[in-house]
């Protein structure tokens, strides 16, 4: 075995390697979290606790337990009283506690919300429940034409500030790519206390059902092509902001991981690949990376981190507009696309 050092330090958390399961269906239940640990995950980011969940689950439970009660003499209620319910935050806090008790890896909780207000106080409860860090996923669709980009940006900063105010553990901020001035936004988030930026969250993009005339939820698994966008921004921001960078979205293969690290990511996070191929894929990726690094004589992850960042590469404009034209001109339709075009 080589003495290649895959360890990485993410927001003060010492991790055995940089491939971390991201918030999602694999990290919302204790049995799955334990399976991930067994499969070599160096940490997990728990499935998100949503702002709506905090507010709504409690209200919904109350609504249905109260609905129709104290109305009809024979049926003054319709359900037994089961005592305390773990709704929204309570259930989530119990998951954190259990995960901390039954695993030995760092547990990064995830809080997903968009407005300031009472829900951000749950960050403190998350900390008290034992989370080692918090990923704050701010997901805002600015549908109101009266809201300006400056107001949107301020909203992100306000939420972060409130959360930071409530906790001492490190806070990563997961954002989307749609900022007019991403670099500036990134810096302001770091200045406001973000210990890391996670680039990017995959936006839920609803689909339309033309038969049923309905808007339908639609979520497909990512693929490696989606790596490009976060890869670019990790590479651009690396060295320009003082906080750590995590690359999320489109990480599937050994090369994806290596690219992420070389662009400057402290960790890469993934879900789709694990959903497709199981938790065991983590160890497999680690083995592949180790082999590759051996072959290419790298000694540590730290060594390669940022080696292909914008600041480090020979042609920094490759990340900017200059390469744009080149790429467009180099594109040729694939043969199958041509055939179908001709048939039409």
């Amino acid at each position: 075995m080589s003495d290649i050092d895959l360890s990485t330090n993410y927001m003060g958390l010492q991790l055995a390697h940089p491939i971390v399961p991201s918030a999602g269906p694999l990290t919302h239940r204790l049995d799955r979290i334990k399976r991930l640990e067994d499969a070599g995950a160096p940490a997990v980011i728990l499935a998100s606790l949503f702002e709506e969940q905090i507010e709504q689950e409690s209200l919904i439970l109350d609504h249905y337990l109260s609905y129709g009660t104290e109305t009809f003499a024979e049926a003054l209620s319709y359900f037994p009283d089961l005592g305390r319910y773990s709704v929204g935050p309570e259930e989530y806090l119990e998951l954190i506690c259990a995960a901390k008790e039954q695993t030995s890896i760092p547990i990064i909780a995830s809080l997903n919300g968009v407005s300031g207000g009472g829900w951000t106080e749950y960050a403190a409860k998350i900390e008290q429940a034992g989370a080692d860090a918090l990923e704050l996923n701010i997901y805002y669709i600015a549908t109101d034409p009266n809201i300006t980009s400056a107001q949107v940006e301020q909203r992100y900063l306000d939420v972060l500030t409130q959360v930071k105010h409530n906790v001492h553990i490190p806070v990563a901020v997961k954002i989307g790519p749609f900022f007019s001035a991403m670099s500036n936004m990134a810096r302001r988030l770091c200045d406001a206390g973000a210990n890391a930026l996670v680039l990017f969250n995959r936006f839920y993009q609803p689909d339309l059902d033309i038969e049923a005339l309905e808007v339908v939820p639609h979520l497909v698994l990512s693929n490696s092509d989606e790596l490009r966008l976060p890869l670019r921004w990790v590479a651009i921001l690396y060295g320009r902001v003082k906080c750590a960078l995590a690359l999320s979205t489109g990480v599937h293969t050994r090369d994806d991981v290596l690219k992420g690290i070389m662009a400057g990511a402290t960790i890469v996070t993934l879900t789709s690949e694990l959903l497709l191929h199981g938790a065991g894929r983590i160890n497999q990726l680690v083995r592949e990376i180790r082999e590759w690094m051996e072959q290419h004589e790298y000694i540590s992850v730290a060594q390669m981190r940022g080696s292909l960042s914008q600041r480090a590469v020979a042609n920094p404009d490759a990340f900017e507009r200059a390469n744009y034209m080149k790429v467009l001109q180099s594109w040729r339709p694939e043969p199958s696309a041509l055939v179908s075009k001709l048939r039409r």
Partner: protein
Amino acid sequence: MPRELVTIEGNEAAAYVAYKTSEIIAIYPITPSSPMAEFCDQWSAQGVKNIWGTVPLVQEMQSEGGAAGAIHGALQSGSLATTFTSSQGLLLMIPNMFKIAGELTSTVFHIAARSIAAQGLSIFGDHSDVMAARSTGWAMLFASSVQEVMDFALIALASTLEARVPFLHVFDGFRTSHEIQKIERLSEDDMRTMIREELVWAHRSRALSPDRPFIRGTAQNPDVYFQARETVNPFYLATPAIVQNVMIRFAELTGRKYGLFEYVGAPDAERVIVSMGSSCDTIEETVNWLNAHGERVGAIKVRLYRPFSAEHLVQALPKSVRSIAVLDRCKEPGSAGEPLYLDVVSALAEQWEGALPRVIGGRYGLSSKEFTPAMVKAVFDELGKPRPKNHFTVGIYDDVTFTSLDYDPAFDIEPKNTVRAVFWGLGADGTVGANKNSIKIIGEETDNYAQGYFVYDSKKSGARTVSHLRFGPEPIRRPYLISKANFIGIHQFGFLERYDVLAQAEEGATILLNSPYGPESVWDHLPRPAQEQILAKKLKLYVIDAYKVAAEAEMGNRINTIMQTCFFAISGVLPREEAIAKIKEAIRKTYGKRGEAVVRKNFEAVDATLSHLYEVPIPADAPITGSPLPPVVPPEAPEFVQKVSATMIAGKGDLLPVSALPVDGTYPSGTTQWERRNIALEVPVWDPNICIQCGKCVFVCPHAVIRAKVYEPSALAHAPQGFKSAEARWKELAGLKYTLQVSVEDCTGCALCVEACPAKDKTQAGRRAINMEPQLPLREQEAENWAFFKQLPEYPRVNHLVFNNVKNVQLLEPLFEFSGACAGCGETPYLSLLTRLFGDRIYVANATGCSSIYGGNLPTTPWSFNREGRGPAWSNSLFEDNAEFGFGMRLTLDKQNEQARELVTALREQIGEALCDAILNADQSTEAGIQAQRARVAELKAKLQMLDKPEAKRLLALADMLVRKSVWVVGGDGWAYDIGYGGLDHVLASGRNIKLLVLDTEVYSNTGGQASKATPLGAAAKFAASGKHQPKKDLGLMAITYSNVYVAQVAMGANDAQTIKAFREAEAYDGPALIIAYAHCIAHGIDMAKGMNQQKLAVESGYWPLYRYNPVLAKEGKNPFQLDSSAPKIPLRDYAYNETRYRMLAQSNPEEAEALMKIAQEVVNARWRQYAALAGLKN
């Protein structure tokens, strides 16, 4: 250490002692005793231990008979065991009770005493049930208040262990079982002190055991049975003294003294009332008041009714007594007098020394009829007359046999230092819940005593609640409603227009009104009677727009905490700040376990309240500007509805005299049409341009308020402006018009129709052919449209359409309409369908439960009739006997048809051969065939009228039986799977042409959601608080094993065509048929508007496969089992976790829920494989 003061209801008081002192508890739901069982099941699920440190085993049974049987077994094997029941439930226990008493077995059954179904069912309180059990040999101890319920539960147990005679511990259903009072809670040490452990060991030592075998339960012969029966005498003779001694020990322990017969009143009283139960408190209060005002009267409170100690009774009576009135809360028609009266008469005859006092007996308080100080005074007044009326009634007006005593309703003895508050609310607005909190706040946080009692509606949707709350510095012993309130909360403005809510206000009372109108304008919106009473009684009026405050706090229509805050602010029961703090504490206590957000929302509502509360300045000379109240029913309603139903609807049924009511429980059909409830805030509105006329909205409407008709265009000549129509979209009906009309005044606003509508606006997909819009602006126009629509001709049942699909079925008239079922009910659409298809020729035997309540609860009932005057013949017998009840109808039909045919044959010459043959050989398999037969029978009847032969007269009485009719036995899963299963099975096995429709909500819905054998594995329900661990019984498959029973499992929300097919095939099948229909329910905890979608998911998950088993196919050599739904497409959890019944378990016990869900999925998979194999499908 002082005992804890708690504010609880009677049921909880009984359950608390019963639970703490039992090892085995067998339960079964029946109103009003169900909460006792629910408490025990819940405590057991939570691991609460009894006084011996073990968690009692609580087991639901299939009926009260089953519960009694299980208890009998548990007792015989040495357990301390108990159960709870009421009414018919107690009657079902009677056979076992004879055994338990005959074997001298110690136990206590706790009874919330309730009326017995006679001319009608009643869930309310009286002593009919326990009096029917008095020959069983059980001791009977009657408690009259919530405190006494707790005390007597323990006294009864301590006594039975010593006496070996089993005890019924009795208290009045609702009045005591549901009244909330501040009482002292007995400690576990109290129970340990009172229950002598050596008696428990003795009880165990008498148990059956193979380690020391003996037999018990022999069969005995004439030589010894009689003597053996007499062996128990010493035990009964000893019991009164044992109870008295236990009461003395209890008094030493707690300071509360009780006697077997307690005398209260003047020591030299000449007039005495003898009574039992909650009436005792009313009588005692009145006696004290009368004596304080110069009278000399007294009362005997009977505690130990059985064994009846004449000696103790005579000892308790003052020697001065000259006349005695014995009050019975029951009726025994044909007897020499009611039971207590007869007992008192015989006791005096046997034991009284000297001239016997005059004894009269009277009935009062049946079915929770109010019993007030005014009535007590009337009884004393009667006793003072030289020839007092015997066998009287009090509290009603009997203008037929003139039994009733006159009383002065204005007679009032309530002390003025009591706060008497009445709150009028809607079930949906949470008024009762908030009031229960208020009672707890005042009862537990102040030195005041508190009492709460709640009156509910007969309807399940849009239901009204009236809360009666008393608070005061002295114990409150007034088990009757508040007639003069000093505070009235009116939580719905509309109540002012429908009820005389201010009639209860005393002079100077405070009125709190939830009003959309502010203090400046509200006066002009008040109806005339309200204005008049406000001025005449100098009432103080406060208004708040609680719905506005609730909306701002995102609380929807839950205005409860807002109105509660106003009450505390205005009434001054507590200082404002303190009150608000206490309200918040109560909110946290009540809602905190459901999460922080709900607590926060309620806090926000409380904080926002006071700035919206205004006193309305009303000058003494304010002008009367309001309108009189509108008539309760429209003037065109039939006379009975005008005179009787309308009085009940107006809440004045107590005023109806005996003569107004039918003698045998017979009421006219189709009366809901006259009770316009106007309960929906939003109603569906039809858009003819988008509509594809599929009929799905009509099909799913639970209250049959959406109707479709096709008609000649000329019929529109006199249509009101705004009446909508479209070209009929049937190729067979080209040229006709189509209208979809909503009766907005009968709609409950459930929105199932909108969800069912498949047609969407091509330019705006969110709009459908039917959309919800506010009711009020539409009310007048749509009422006019409805009236016009109603008079349009019905589409003829015989025509060129086949009624085998939803589109065509929508044109059939439903004969079940505007029931009192919940908004969005999943059961009633099946009944609507049943009546559309066959309503003019069906008998319906309806098991007790939701369907018998929304189907038969007065004042108005939904089973209707068509223009020819034909409609369902509906009746409810009991819960447990429904299949047999319907079966009896079938036997009648079969026999009378046979007789009629015999007579037709016998009268062949007179009738004429052609008609005779046509009648006897008629093919009635189609609608046309049935109508032709009706015409023949009409012709036959005309001929018979002319014949002067006895056979002709006999045939005339039976001729209608020559027309095909069918019998439908309808009920819920509690009936079909549990209590009525034996009968259902027998009827299925009979081979006769009878149809059984199971409306399967998977719980006892009517009694509040207790588990049945239909409850699915993994769901939480009452009596399965830790989640049901056994799979649902496969009733359909069990029926299929007979091979000659038609069986279908349907879910109209998943496949409406299959549902129609199943109903038609079942009816057509000449033999027994069983349809098991998925009925979504409020007890599932779902968005009721999405009920049909949930049915779809149930089918898609494979949880509820659709199938039909048709024995006819087997005769044709085909596979009789047809699977109508496809293999599971979604995991069970995707269906289940849309429902609170599953989700709540996952939220309270995730590991258990997960484990159960896994098993439940395996059960679904296995069942599917089994069905697929039956259907001959390859897996």
